[in-house]
């Protein structure tokens, strides 16, 4: 029994029981449960476990192989680090939501069939929304609802696709799916929503920055990387993903440049980083899939680190608007340093984690001779340094001194950031430790002269461009504003359309009923012109319209049956 204990259940059930525990136990529990689950994971040999039958279908609730292991491992690490970061939070709802959410993501990664995947897929949506709701503001509430609808909608599509796939193939197994069937298309869209494909992406930039200080960090780790895993499992080598991924790397960085809310800037750059992974899946070679897995691993860490540092700023300074910040390095030196480590990692500076993972993907793209995509990725690499690597630390901690003087972040936050920063550097310095757990054997050396120098050239000249633009005043100033994105379609267009549909439906039913009763009344009026009193029929009681429907339907049925 213990041998096949699902780590996801440890987190989910443990998390669900936490509210019963006293405050101190609960706090330690948030740290202990991820560790316990990690031990359970590490003690499991690769294989399939937890096979159950539910209404006639065999489910594999736990499948551990080289691909699911990498994702499950980093999810455990992320669950622990985010719990440490949130140690000071006394809100039971957030504590439980974070654990259940992490557990659900792990459960989904370990799912061996589409139904188990669906159940955990929806659980990630439902549990994570509380991290946004816990912010307690009206804005957060509305963003949370939009987030929930989109996430649950993704699950519904997944289920629909699964049903169709079962119908067609008779199998629920979650292996290669492919785009050549309608079921496969639906599942693709379901994954695409969670993976923030272009035009399906906006829930991410909409919701993440509205979550609580710690909630955003938790959110950044799981949902989208779960989708990356699902795509890598179901659609490796799908050409369309190369295009989609390339667009994903490029377009968010334009928004990131003009966005003022620094956590939203990070959300855009998160989207851009996902693009690299999606390209890797699209290329689909062993090297590329290794790159995707490695990049997801290091990405979760440095993205969490960046969100942690911005969370600390939000907690202490009360805002993360670039226009209102500046000079915080004086008050929060450690946070500044950790933020810079995160920035260097996401920008792929040599000796930082991004350098050794992103280059796998770029090399794989070049090896398949996609020169244009490769250039787009190179542009995106320069761009991500530009807005995440420089803009985030610059506007938060340097730029002009905003005069804000606040405390350094709480100790538990610093500890969490320190540990994460350590991991970012450790991976960058000892890439082979990460390469060793990738799905396929790795034969790649990131630290070559060419690679180091060309990468430094790219980054340093991007920095130079930033400097020149700021110095010459060409750089767009940080402004309080909202930038229209794809979410306009459902925040503005759809509500209008739905209101119209509602009133249209009302008018239509009224009119049909009225027309039917009028025409019938006209017939009766004619018939009874010389006979009974007209008042009887002219009376407009609702029962009348019902009876008319009966007559219409009877006549109609008779007509049809006689034909």
């Amino acid at each position, binding site marked *: 029994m213990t041998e096949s204990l699902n780590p996801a259940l440890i987190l989910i059930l443990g998390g669900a029981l936490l509210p019963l525990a006293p405050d101190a136990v609960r706090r330690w529990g948030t740290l202990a449960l991820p560790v316990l689950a990690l031990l359970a994971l590490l003690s499991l040999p690769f294989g399939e476990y937890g096979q159950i039958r539910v209404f006639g279908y065999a489910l594999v609730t736990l499948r551990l192989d080289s691909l699911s292991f990498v994702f499950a491992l980093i999810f455990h690490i992320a669950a622990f680090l985010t719990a440490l970061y949130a140690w000071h939070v006394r809100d039971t709802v957030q504590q439980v939501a974070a654990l259940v959410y992490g557990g659900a993501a792990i459960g989904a990664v370990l799912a061996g069939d589409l139904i188990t995947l669906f159940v955990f897929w929806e659980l990630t949506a439902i549990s994570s929304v509380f991290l946004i709701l816990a912010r307690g503001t009206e804005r957060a509430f509305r963003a949370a609802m939009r987030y929930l609808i989109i996430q649950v909608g993704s699950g519904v599509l997944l289920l629909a696709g699964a049903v169709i796939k079962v119908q067609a193939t008779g199998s629920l197994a979650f292996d290669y799916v492919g785009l050549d069937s309608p079921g496969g298309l639906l599942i693709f869209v379901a994954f695409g929503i969670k993976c923030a494909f272009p035009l399906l992406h906006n829930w991410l930039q909409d919701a993440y920055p509205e979550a609580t200080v710690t909630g955003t960090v938790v959110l950044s780790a799981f949902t989208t990387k779960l989708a990356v895993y699902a795509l890598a499992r179901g659609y490796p080598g799908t050409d369309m993903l190369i295009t989609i991924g390339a667009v994903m790397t490029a377009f968010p960085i334009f928004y990131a*440049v003009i966005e003022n809310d620094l956590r939203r800037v990070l959300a855009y750059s998160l989207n851009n980083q996902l693009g690299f992974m999606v390209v890797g899946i699209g290329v689909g070679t062993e090297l590329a899939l290794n790159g995707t897995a490695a990049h997801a691993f290091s990405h979760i860490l440095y993205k969490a680190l960046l969100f942690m540092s911005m969370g600390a700023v939000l907690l202490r300074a009360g805002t993360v608007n670039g226009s209102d910040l500046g000079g915080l390095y004086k008050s929060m030196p450690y946070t500044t340093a950790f933020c810079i480590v995160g920035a260097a990692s996401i920008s792929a500076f040599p000796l930082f984690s991004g350098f050794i993972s992103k280059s796998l993907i770029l090399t794989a793209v070049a090896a398949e001779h996609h020169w244009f995509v490769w250039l787009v990725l190179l542009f995106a690499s*320069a761009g991500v340094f530009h807005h995440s690597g420089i803009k985030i630390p610059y506007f938060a901690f340097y730029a002009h001194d905003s005069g804000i003087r606040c405390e350094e972040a709480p100790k538990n936050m610093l500890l969490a950031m320190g540990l994460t920063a350590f991991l970012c550097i450790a991976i960058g310095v000892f890439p082979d430790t990460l390469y060793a757990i990738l799905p396929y054997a790795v034969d790649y050396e990131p630290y070559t002269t060419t690679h180091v120098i060309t990468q430094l050239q790219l980054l*340093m000249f991007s920095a*130079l461009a930033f400097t020149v*633009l700021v110095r010459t005043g060409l750089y767009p100033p940080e402004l309080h504003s*909202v*930038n229209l994105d794809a979410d306009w379609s459902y925040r503005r267009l759809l509500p209008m359309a739905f209101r119209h549909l509602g009133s249209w439906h009302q008018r239509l039913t009224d009119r049909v009923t009225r027309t039917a009763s009028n025409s019938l009344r006209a017939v009766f009026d004619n018939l009874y012109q010389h006979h009974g009193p007209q008042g009887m029929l002219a009376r407009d009681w609702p029962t009348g319209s019902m009876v008319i429907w009966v007559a219409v339907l009877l006549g109609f049925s008779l007509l049809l049956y006689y034909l």
Partner: protein
Amino acid sequence: MPGPTDDKDRTKKTYWLDQRRNVDRLVYGLVAICGLLVVADLFYHKHTHFAFEGWFGFFAGFGFVMCVILVLLAKEMRKIVKRDEDYYD
């Protein structure tokens, strides 16, 4: 030990970066590093997948030009997509 006096000191304290001259020094430093990196291209053999990678200073030029284009395009984009902060409220 954080304390009231400590805080006061901190607000009065002048940091190295507060002086314009030091910021300029940083910028010159950056320019110097950039220069060295370009020159470095002459001293090793580039292993490349594509021919254009081998051009002298390709990565440097690409990084600089693309970033300028990125910012200028984003600035233009702002004219179209920017709305008041309470647009959706």
